[in-house]
């Protein structure tokens, strides 16, 4: 049994995000917290934001690579919520309070129709997708020094920070999304490369997992929503003044700059 009302944790995480002051891991204070508790805590923060007028525009999927799952000792991905206020266009300068940001190159799916689990397959995802587009997810943790276990990151909105979508959408069949190559530059130097298969073998499987997972909570993926399907490389730390660009072959590019000085 959780030692403290879950709502209290939601409040603390919300405060940490607003003030830019990270907190100690939840799991250190209360090892009894479960993953189900963690998703409730996450939803608690979502409800507070929505009550303040924020709009949910989609979801992000995390922990989609085997190495990441092994590092946290888990067997499946996790997910968080995306808000309109987190959304940047390619080339925009990101000027917002971030605590310890890292960048992940991803393929974003924008849905043409609702996608409701359980039983969603890769083909269901592909036929429900309006377009795919290169994306940069800026992950951030409200937990000090990224000392996260699964419960900590799930409670903390899957460590979502903000995200950038490329300007040129492609139909889902334009390229083989599992072998499509990705090159990530930071300040002009190649820092990571990868391919779509880094995400559960095919990024579409990330979206299918999400649709099926959300069914456990009685929700569905909505038409028009954005799904960040998971990182195709290791996350790269960024600081004020950095410029990053991800290129996904024929799917094109997405780039972002981080405002100079103390963001």
């Amino acid at each position, binding site marked *: 049994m959780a030692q403290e009302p879950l709502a209290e944790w939601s409040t603390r995480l919300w405060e940490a995000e607003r003030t830019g002051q990270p907190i100690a891991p939840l799991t250190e204070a209360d090892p009894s917290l479960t993953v189900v508790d963690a998703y409730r805590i996450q939803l608690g923060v979502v409800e507070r934001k929505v009550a303040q007028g924020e709009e949910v525009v989609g979801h992000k999927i995390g922990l989609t*690579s*085997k190495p990441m799952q092994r590092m946290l000792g888990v067997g499946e991905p996790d997910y968080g919520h995306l808000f309109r206020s987190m959304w940047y266009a390619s080339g925009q300068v990101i000027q917002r309070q971030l605590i310890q940001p890292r960048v992940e190159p991803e393929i974003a799916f924008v849905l043409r129709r609702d996608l409701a689990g359980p039983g969603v397959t890769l083909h269901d995802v592909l036929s429900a997708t309006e377009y795919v587009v290169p994306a940069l997810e800026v992950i951030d943790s409200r937990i000090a020094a990224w000392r996260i276990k699964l419960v900590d990151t799930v409670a903390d909105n899957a460590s979502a920070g903000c995200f950038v979508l490329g300007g040129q959408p492609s139909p889902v069949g334009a390229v*083989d999304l*599992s*072998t*499509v*190559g*990705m*090159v990530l530059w930071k300040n002009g*130097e*190649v*820092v990571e*490369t*990868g*391919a*779509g*298969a*880094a995400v559960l*073998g095919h990024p579409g499987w990330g979206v299918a997992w999400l649709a099926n997972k959300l069914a456990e909570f009685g929700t569905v993926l909505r038409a028009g929503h954005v799904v960040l399907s998971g990182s*195709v*490389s290791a996350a790269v730390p960024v600081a004020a003044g950095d410029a990053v660009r991800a*290129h996904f*072959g*024929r799917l094109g590019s997405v780039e972002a700059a981080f405002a100079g000085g103390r963001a």
Partner: protein
Amino acid sequence: MEELGRIADWIFQHQRQAQEMGRVTDRWPGLTVEDAYRIQELVVDRMVADGDRVVGWKMGLTSAAKQRSMGVAEPIYGRLTAAMELSEPVLHLAGTIHPRVEPELAFVFKRSLGGPSVRPRDVWLATECVLPAFEIIDSRYQNFSFTLIDVVADNASGCRFYVGDQGYAPYAARWDEVGVVVTKNGEVVQTGAGAAVLGHPVQSVVTLVRMLDRIGAQIEAGMVVLTGGITEAVHLAAGDRVDIGFEGLGTIPLRVVT
């Protein structure tokens, strides 16, 4: 220098018998990088004297991250011999120590290419085709632990290589954008893209030619050049099945047997 010959004998024995050895730099302090390349050449001379022949070159340390970890600013090269080439994508562990596999793009040359100021377009003119390939690296040093000088002397950890059957025109793809997926026993273990190699694999050939020019060597017509690992090297054990997929260029299925 006689000393270099003795070092070459010592390394040659360990390579031939697939035996681990201590660092050359511990046993013979004071060697330079130039000495190390000379030792590498002397070792390969011994292979050739035994009936082998040089068929090309391999590049190593082609990512900025690997160069930083070794404290160097340029890649290294090694020599490929006929005996190192696999005729089918099957690795026999006998004759190896702790092998790892790296996905690479291979360039095959129709014309010789040399000189101090080769440009990418000169590389394209001299290239007959580009092929998906893999390299088996296997350092003779204990725990794969070495300095720059050690690894150069040990032929840049070269062990075996395999080049796919289907060649592609040099202009068939953006080689820096080509995605690579390495699946081991059904699980995706590494992904990458051609740009992991010096921003573009053609830059690896440019750099090789420049480095070879320092010793009066060049890429000869018919030679193959392995441009460098596109992902981290993947450990191999008996029974492993490793599928190395190249975006739009097919998949090489590697089997590992005892």
